[in-house]
Structure formats: C-alpha cells, structure tokens
C-alpha cells in the first residue's frame, strides 16, 4: 500500500481530529493490517498518550474503590 502521504496524519487520526475522507483512508490501512501504518500509528500513539494522560492525579475515595472492585469481582 502507498502510505507515505499519510505520515503527518496518524496522531490526528488517533485523536479523532481528521475529516471523514482522511480518517477513512487510515481506517482502511489499519483494517488491512498495513505494516507501515500500524508501526506509524504505534509511534503516534506514544505522542497522544503523552499529551492526553496527565501527571496529575485525582484522589479516589476508598468507598468508591471498594464499590468498583466488588462489582468487578462479581462479574
């Protein structure tokens, strides 16, 4: 597959920031297991991960944790 024209788009694809036609094009490559696009997306995902997941933490109250874990274990 010809992919180099997509080089600047992988981060924007993962962010959901592309227009329909560019998004669909990368979607097709990903669906077809295109090795070039998969590797580029893996790199782009690192940048998006860094940008999106903050260093900041929110305190999780103990009862909330207990409730979530209890339900999870039941399932």
């Amino acid at each position: 597959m010809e992919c180099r024209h997509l080089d600047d788009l992988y981060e924007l694809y993962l962010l959901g920031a592309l227009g329909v036609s560019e998004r669909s094009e990368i979607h097709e490559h990903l669906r077809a297991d295109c090795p070039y696009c998969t590797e580029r997306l893996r790199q782009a995902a690192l940048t998006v991960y860094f940008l999106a997941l903050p260093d900041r933490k929110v305190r999780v109250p103990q009862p909330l944790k207990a409730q979530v874990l209890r339900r999870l274990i039941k399932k």
Partner: protein
Amino acid sequence: MHEDLFARAEAGDEPALDEIFDRLAPRLLALSARFGSTPADDEQILGDLFYGLLKESRRFRRHGGSATAWLAFAVRTGRIEKRRAAAHLPRAWPPRQNPLRISLAWLPRPSDIARIDERRDLLNKVLRHLPKPQMQVLEMAVFDGLTESEIAEKLKQPLGMVAAELRAAFRFLRHRMSAILGTWNAGI
C-alpha cells in the same frame, strides 16, 4: 507498571486488580476530568473501564500492547464521544471505525510507555517550545476533542491554516520524542 499484573488480574487475582486500580485509577480520573466528567460519573467510568480492561486484556497482550495505553485511549475516546454528543456534534469515529475496535496492533509496547512516563519532565519542556498558535490548536484537538474543521470554525481561521499548524506541531513533537526516547522508531 508490570504488565504481568494484568495477566494475573485477568486470571482473577484480586490483589493484582487492587494494585492496578491504585496505580492507574487516580490518573485516569484526572484524564476524564479534563474532558468534563464530575465525581458523580467516577463510579460508572471506572467500573466500565476496568470491566473493559479485563475483557480485552488478552486481546491486546497478544499484540504486546500496553494495558496502560489501552486504558488511557479508552477513557479519552469514551469521554470525547460523550462530550461531542452533548454538544450535538457527530461522533469522532463511527462505532465500527473506532481504532480500539479495529485492531490493537497499533498499541504501544509497555517498555515505550514506561519510557514516556519516566521522561515526562523532559517531554514537558519540549512541549513548552511549541509556538503559541500551535499549542492552542493542539489543545483543542487533544482536550476539546474537536476536528480540524471544527477548530477552524471556532477560531474563525481558514481550515488550511489550522491543519498546517496541527501538522507542524506533531512533526515537531514526533522528532523531539524520537530523540528523547531513543531508538524506538529505528527500522522505519
């Protein structure tokens, strides 16, 4: 974060689940709060997320993908779609095109995610070098969950200009990150 914890949690090991929760829930809630969630949403968000994690963990571990990365993307994607629905905007991805559903082969490896977390201070410094207009559009894409054309509309700027700023910002970050993180992109 030891990824074998996820394998243990998947097999029903409660202490492993407990440890994953303690390590990741506080950051994941901080991420969802950036997308407008409130403490009243927290139980639902964490419940869905950890349920999804246990359900999907075999799938992404098969590809060697990081569970931490999966969680971060799952939170962000879920919150964006909620926020966009509330604002009457179309979905960021049609359900079947959500990248987390198509393939998980693109998820970063645990060692690369660990390296990012170790070098965050340095990476944050890099971020500060982005010109203001690039930073502005970057934040709108990352934290407001807007598309390029929605950003252009909001800023009353031509789409071509916004698209160029975003691409330039990511080109800059991509190069700096590959330098800071070492050889993770060797071979391309």
